[in-house]
């Protein structure tokens, strides 16, 4: 029984030693990580519309019941077509907003008549983000023409999961992380158009958008 305290002392000494070693390791790791951080910014998930093939996974794979991915219309690339391949079902019967003619499964695209010019009617197509489920049907349809519809992770909804469930399932690996202060992307032709547009002083909204867009 006499050697018990000695044994305990020894054990405590070893434990102290290991604790100090652990602390030093953790400190070193922390220092290393903080040191590496440098100018680092926070990042958020975004998809690259140039790679997107509108496969529908965005609608079904997001951890949110209603996906964080929504369709965006880039008006400056839109042809304002009467026969919109993103709006109308390929087997449409008439060019009107009736249910049997629409392609969008939730009816999230609004079609507004703008003007008739030289016998051609022009319509504006606006996405109602609240109703959009990000299925990309219109994106696929529009890609046949101008491709002004494209999908984006909407950052008012995205939870910024550590591992994005859509990214895991994306067939073209179009998802990656962008700096949080420029969390959106445009298709490359759209970006060029936007850059031209901001030069005009009246387009504050274009400048707002450009400030949100990641420019590679």
């Amino acid at each position, binding site marked *: 029984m006499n050697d018990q305290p000695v044994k305990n002392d020894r054990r405590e000494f070893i434990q102290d030693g290991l604790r100090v070693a652990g602390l030093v390791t953790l400190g070193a790791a922390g220092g290393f990580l903080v040191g590496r951080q440098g100018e680092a910014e926070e990042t958020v998930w975004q998809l690259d519309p140039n790679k997107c093939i509108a496969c529908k996974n965005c609608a079904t794979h997001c951890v949110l019941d209603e996906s964080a991915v929504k369709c965006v219309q880039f008006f400056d690339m839109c042809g304002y077509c009467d026969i919109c391949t993103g709006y109308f079902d390929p087997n449409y*019967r008439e060019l009107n907003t009736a249910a049997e003619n629409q392609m969008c499964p*939730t009816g999230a695209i609004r079609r507004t008549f703008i003007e008739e010019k030289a016998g051609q009617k022009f319509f504006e197509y606006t996405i109602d983000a609240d109703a959009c489920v990000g299925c990309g049907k219109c994106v696929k349809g529009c890609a046949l023409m101008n491709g002004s519809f494209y999908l984006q992770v909407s950052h008012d909804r995205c939870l910024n999961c550590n591992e994005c469930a859509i990214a895991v399932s994306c067939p073209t690996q179009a998802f990656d992380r962008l700096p949080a202060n420029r969390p959106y992307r445009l298709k490359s032709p759209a970006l060029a158009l936007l850059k031209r547009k901001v030069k005009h002083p009246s387009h504050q909204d274009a400048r707002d958008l450009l400030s949100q867009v990641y420019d590679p």
Partner: protein
Amino acid sequence: MRFTPSYRSIVWTAIVTGVFSVMVGSCLVFALDAPWRKLPLEELRFLTLKAELESDAGNERLQQELRDLDVDIRSRYFRQQQFIKRGAYLLTGGVIATLMLVRWSNNVKWQAPDPKRLVTPQGWETRQNQLGKIAAVILVLALTAVVLVYHFSSRQPALSRMIEIPATEQPDTGVDNLQPALAPVLVPTQAEIFANWPRFRGPLGSGFAAFDDIPQTWSSTTGEGILWKSPVDLPGVSSPVVWQKRIFLTGASALKREVYCFDTDSGDLIWTRSVAVRDGTPAETDVEETTGFAAPTPATDGQRVYAIFASGDLVAFDFDGNELWSRAFGPLDNPYGHASSLATYRDRVIVQLDQGNGDDHKSRLLALQGATGKPVWEVQREVPASWATPVVIEFEDPPRIITAANPWVIANAADDGRELWRAECLSGDVGPSPIYVDGVVYLANDGACVAAIKDGGRGDVTKSHVLWKAEYGLPDICSPLVTEELLLLVPSSGGLASYDRQTGSEEPLWEQDLDVMLMASPSLVGNHVYLIGENGRSWVVKPHETGFDQVSENDLAEPCLSCPAFQPGRIYIRGKQHLYCIGNR
């Protein structure tokens, strides 16, 4: 005074909240899986109505019904979204309440344990620890086993079982810089093999060309579709083989044997090499006139080209025309002249050397090292002379070589030559080669039968693996061809015959005549079959269940007995005197 409800009342409340939570939970699970959770316009009812409306255009009532349904399902969709959200809150609340109540009931009824009942038996800890050790080991092994079983039972075979990426040291050049890393390829990858036409009847020997833009019309009289034609000095019925920018061809007379290398773009002859016979072998071999001295098609592995002649001389050249080695197997005891073409497996050349009468132990199958010509393995075959070409299936496990002869169809392991299975179904002089499609070997020979044999099994599989057999429309020279549904044969009497390739039947589904005899085996491009008659006339036809439709008829101004070779956008055909390149300009 503090209010303490009775134990019973707490438990009952807990039960009520618990039942409530379960109900809400099951509602939610049902809601999560319910059909009406589909996107509004993808609901089945809507889609059927839409289809109905399409077929019955102008039906106002149907149109109105569809619109009403649309409004209905849309509003329900958004109601359901709300429902689920509220349900989730409700469930959380219910579960929390239940838990709280259960804990509370526990506390109310809490009693300190009676230590008398807690007895730890002697040696308990030691025993538990021993058990724990065993359990730990079992656990780890079981986990590994589960992973492996899951891995190997997955539907998709692992990459390493399908392709071989050269084992040469690859400097870490990154993805952008692939070309230099690939330069010292020793073994062709399956991808490369499939991108080329390295042997008789293409990559798998099945006459199937998976390339785009293959021309369908040409004419050597008008010159339409002919990109170039180059004369070939010596005659031969061997077919061209193609690797990237090079076409290899053989030709031979009774006294001379030559290997040619042409440029795919210009048709220029890059090199010609003549092959000498070894001292002591008779310079002349007896052959039947149509077979000739250069019937076997050469083969290439992307590094070297191998050629064999009726004299029994096997030779290997590198792509620059340097002779690497040669071996003389002759003279061969073959009544018509040796015609089995060569095949390759990885860096080896496979030779089917069937001769004699079957009892004289002359027939064999060999694998020779491509670089040196040294034999890797050799198996004896108790079969008489045959004229069929082996097929090599690299992506099966183990990789295998399938040969046809009288009477055995035999599968040998490509690595060591050991026999995997054999089936007895042929007889007579076996000319048509076997083909392998989707795990089934198809063969046919005049006077015997046409048979589909499921690859696999051990030993004699005649009884167990022959899927079907039939006895009409049998070919004597041309090998079979398989389309998506059909098995096509070129009967010895001419024309084209067809069977359902899955089920077979007693008689062909149809037989249709062509006014010319075919010597070249048919080829398949997409769903079009390319047939070349012995007088050079050729057809592109589209077979179906009841016959074939002719897509085009083309002519070549000279006889043709060889199979065409394909490359994206091009066909190479060897006529009696010329090599033609057909393509879209």
